[in-house]
């Protein structure tokens, strides 16, 4: 019971401010704010390129979100301010309460009065006929056996034995809240306030052109190696070195110089049988003038290298400039003159097709492509589709389409196809052309077919033959009458189809045929076209040396149908050639993340303190009891025994009853001796 008189406070500004900062209400408000803002950051993907947001939300919302700083919500000024207030609030709380708590740990409250003890919820009152000193000794030693610490005080008319155990409970409060302060301080150190300020004030400028190579970045965006804390990433190709990392900041980046040079000797990725990555590791060599000889080390996921306070982590991997041997198959050349090209990823190749210049920008190469395939039953099955490469084809106007071509044919429905994907913008998914593969697993037969379709002389011959076959049942006069026109039309159809696919065909029909006859015309035209192309195809099979006298095999016939499907769509492909990958030399690049985090030990210390504090607070209870021993009188010695606990009254009530019984027993009291 606190009987001290409170000093009248002077309500100065400082006092009010401290009250406010240390108040629970502020803390709760700040925490709710942090929780709410954090939630937003989980639903709205953070730190994406601004372009993506603009596409997703449109200009109106995009501007609002930018101004609120929602794209980097954990780094925006008001969020940092919230964290800062949390730090301040907790610190003030600890500063204000810690002295009181520490005092409380040592304060036995030996001044409790008789009447107040009698009013305790947990109490007992006894009258014992016994030697007073002996009683006091007994009580004291019993309570000590029970784990209590004792403070005795003699007064005129009574002796007060004040006991306490579990005082360390109060430390639990101090530990937990101090831990939060410690963790915040450690985070700030890691967070690198000086750098944030330098960016804010303009001393350091963020480079926003993400395509700029490191050598061209201006000095204002380069940080020297004396920067105490950072986390950045760099991708090093096999056989190459790096002495910088890139820090992602807001919508751009900064370059951080490293005090040493990292060389990637080898990168290895191991796969499970299913093709999923099992592990990846890098063999690094650190070159540093301060070293006697270069330091070689292997890092892998979960096993970083710590060098001079810099932790080097194996984070990811990508292509490091693989060398590709390509062959371009022209799609509009009756002579099918192919072009062999050598290139490497990240490089460009200029080509000319019919005197029209194009640039092939080689973007990526992937050796393993694990894709889901149609699964029987419920399980998702994955298959390795083999290597593929991605490139952009840019015309002289600067417009580009992106392509993804696989190296080997994929099986679908029992047939083999070469996949070639195309898209006009990064936001779209790839749409694939399924080029049927021939018996050798190559695109040659298909390309021969396309070339044959464009060989006007050959087409002329085949059309005549086909038309003649179709009109065979008619009289010779009829034949003469129709065949000319039919020949012309059919040649026309073949040409339309070869250059524009089904789209061109449909357009032609819609332009030139009256509406009510369009359906019939489409059917007829397609029939003739199919027969003509069929004969053309037979010619190709013969060229390959296949015997068609008995008829065409099912796989060859399927090939024809599949080829027609592709022809029908080929005008959407948008490229004058199909780029086949004949060979590759795989050069990998290892994605490293390098961090220097000076606040690390502080944070770990804070976390440990937090955990210890929590367990102390919950599981070591501070209990007090008092024994008021009156002076000896006729009726004996009056003893008032009371107890209290600062937390769990329910448990303590039970424990106090047992404690009472044991003490009573120790003092020689029977069941009936004044137990209240």
């Amino acid at each position, binding site marked *: 019971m606190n009987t001290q008189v409170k000093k009248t406070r002077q309500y100065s500004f400082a006092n009010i401010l401290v009250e406010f900062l240390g108040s629970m209400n502020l803390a709760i408000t700040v925490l709710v704010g942090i929780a709410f803002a*954090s939630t937003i950051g*989980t639903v709205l993907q953070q730190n994406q390129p601004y372009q993506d947001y603009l596409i997703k939300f449109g200009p109106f919302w995009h501007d609002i979100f930018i101004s609120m700083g929602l794209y980097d919500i954990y780094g925006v000024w008001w969020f940092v301010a919230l964290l800062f207030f949390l730090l301040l609030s907790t610190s003030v709380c600890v500063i204000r309460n810690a002295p009181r708590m520490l005092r409380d740990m040592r304060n036995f409250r030996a001044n409790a009065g008789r009447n107040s003890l009698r009013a305790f919820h947990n109490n007992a009152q006894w009258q014992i006929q016994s030697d007073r000193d002996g009683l006091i000794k007994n009580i004291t030693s019993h309570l000590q056996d029970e784990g209590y610490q004792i403070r005795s005080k003699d007064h005129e008319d009574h002796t007060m034995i004040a006991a306490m155990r579990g005082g360390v409970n109060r430390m639990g409060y101090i530990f937990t809240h101090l831990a939060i302060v410690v963790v915040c301080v450690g985070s700030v150190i890691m967070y690198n306030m000086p750098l944030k300020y330098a960016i804010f004030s303009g001393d350091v400028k963020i480079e926003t052109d993400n395509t700029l190579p490191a050598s061209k970045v201006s000095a204002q965006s380069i940080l020297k190696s004396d920067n105490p804390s950072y986390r950045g990433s760099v991708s090093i190709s096999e056989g190459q070195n790096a002495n910088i990392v890139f820090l992602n900041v807001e919508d751009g980046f900064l370059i951080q110089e490293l005090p040493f040079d990292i060389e990637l000797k080898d990168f290895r990725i191991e796969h499970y049988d299913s093709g999923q990555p099992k592990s990846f590791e890098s063999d690094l060599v650190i070159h540093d003038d301060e070293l006697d000889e270069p330091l070689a080390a292997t890092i892998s996921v979960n096993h970083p290298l710590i060098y001079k306070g810099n932790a080097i982590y194996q984070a990811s991997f990508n292509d490091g400039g693989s060398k590709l041997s390509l062959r371009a198959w022209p799609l509009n050349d009756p002579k099918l003159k192919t072009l062999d090209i050598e290139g490497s990823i990240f490089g460009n190749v200029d080509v000319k097709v019919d005197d029209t210049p194009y640039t092939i920008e080689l973007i990526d190469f992937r050796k393993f492509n694990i894709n889901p395939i149609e699964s029987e039953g419920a399980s998702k099955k994955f298959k390795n589709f083999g290597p593929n490469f991605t490139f952009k084809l840019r015309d002289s106007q600067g417009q580009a389409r992106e392509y993804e071509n696989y190296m080997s044919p994929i099986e679908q429905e029992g047939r083999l196809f070469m996949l070639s994907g195309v898209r006009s913008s990064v936001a779209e998914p790839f749409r694939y052309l399924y080029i049927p593969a021939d018996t050798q697993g190559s695109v040659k037969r298909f390309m021969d077919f396309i070339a044959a379709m464009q060989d006007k002389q050959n087409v002329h011959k085949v059309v005549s033959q086909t038309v003649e076959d179709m009109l065979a049942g008619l009289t010779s006069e009829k034949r003469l009458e129709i065949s000319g026109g039919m020949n012309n039309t059919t040649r026309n159809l073949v040409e339309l189809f070869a250059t524009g696919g089904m789209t061109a065909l449909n357009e032609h029909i819609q332009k030139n045929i009256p509406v009510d006859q369009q359906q019939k015309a489409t059917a007829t035209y397609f029939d003739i076209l199919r027969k003509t192309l069929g004969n053309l195809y037979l010619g190709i099979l013969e060229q390959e040396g296949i015997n068609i006298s008995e008829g065409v095999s099912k796989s060859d016939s399927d090939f024809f149908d599949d080829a027609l499907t592709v022809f029908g769509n080929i005008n959407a492909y948008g490229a004058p050639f199909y780029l086949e990958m004949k060979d590759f030399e795989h050069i990998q690049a290892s994605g490293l993340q390098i961090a220097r985090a000076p606040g690390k030990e502080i944070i770990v210390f804070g976390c440990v303190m937090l955990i210890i504090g929590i367990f102390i607070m919950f599981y070591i209870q501070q209990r007090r009891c008092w024994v008021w021993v009156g002076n000896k009188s006729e009726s004996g010695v009056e003893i008032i025994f009371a107890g209290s606990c600062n937390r769990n009254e*329910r448990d303590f009530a039970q424990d106090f009853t047992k404690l009472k019984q044991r003490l009573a027993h120790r003092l020689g009291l029977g069941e009936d001796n004044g137990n209240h």
Partner: protein
Amino acid sequence: MSGTSDYEINKPFLKTLSAYDWIFAALVMAGSFYAWNGYASFMDVYDVGILFGTGISMVALGWYWKQSRTMMLSVAAISIYAVTQYEPAVMALKAEGMDGRQAIAALSDWQNKEQGKFIFKYFLSSATAVGWMCFLFGLATVTYFFNLFVKSEFPGQVATKMTWFAVAMGLVGLLVRWRESYLIHFDVGHIPVSNLYEVFVLFSIITALIYLFYEMRYKTRALGGFVLLVISAAVAFLLWYKFDKNADEIAPLVPALKSYWMKIHVPANFIGYGCFALSAMVGVVFLLRNNAPEGGFAARILPPLDMLDDIMYKSIALGFAWFTIATVLGALWAAEAWGGYWSWDPKETWALIVWLNYAAWLHMRLTKGWRGAPMAWWSIIGLFITLFAFLGVNMFLSGLHSYGEL
């Protein structure tokens, strides 16, 4: 905790231990040493630390909570038996040309009439053991509720036993699964806490254990049905997930999960989740009791409000302590794997929100003395927040934690 008579002060703890306690401890430590001896070459220093730490924790748990000793020893015995029987059978099939996965499927497929030893097919392969766990939990839920309506204590005792058996079967299932993963292929082997299916089994086991502990402590079975409702929901989910999406297939670990941290971060999290789930259900009972007419049926069969309030507090406190440990372990793991303690990844952020939520709950109770129905409501809402952090993040948001996708 009690001396030999009411009047004697607590003896020093070690003196209170019985012969069984010491035999139990000896067996556990012997097992730990045996494992260490056999597998030390595959373990790094942290794995060894975790191995012996687990052994010591098991001894501590068994000494503190006497009922758990028999369960732990039984689970060990059954699992060891299953594994020793499994191994030669699998090896024999592999010698015939089957690969590991096929061999295990052949032995444990209870739909396949021919192949497979009876004991695996119907009891001890991990899939069937987990199946028994599910069945027993469902049955126990019903039995606990039934117990509320009858005077006899017998149904309640049966329900308690069923829950213990369910826990044992679940643990056997996980332990045998651990071995199965290595039998498939050495590369595939890992502790079974790595995907959503496995952790749902873990969740069911841990929540049930926490419940059984409080059942003993507070000497009431009235809460059994309610807490087991959550476990039954988890069981229903994992059965659907297994049968509809084949989620119980053992898959090798992605590189980022290959770490000793997984062995401690994940289970610690689930002690937290289990406590929060239990507390929410107790909150439900609190509200039922609170709104029940005095002297009515509900008031008679449900425990008193102050007891319910106490259980809610104790379980949230325990859950909060373990959740803190789990989150700290997660941060330390992240620092080792990705180079940063805290990257505001959605899973991390939601873990923080769960933590803040229960910290607030505890603050309101301890500092402002809040009690009663609002706290019960808050405890229930807390479960939903926890569920979102546990499942919702994986399902609806993207981030580094997408290993647990559906």
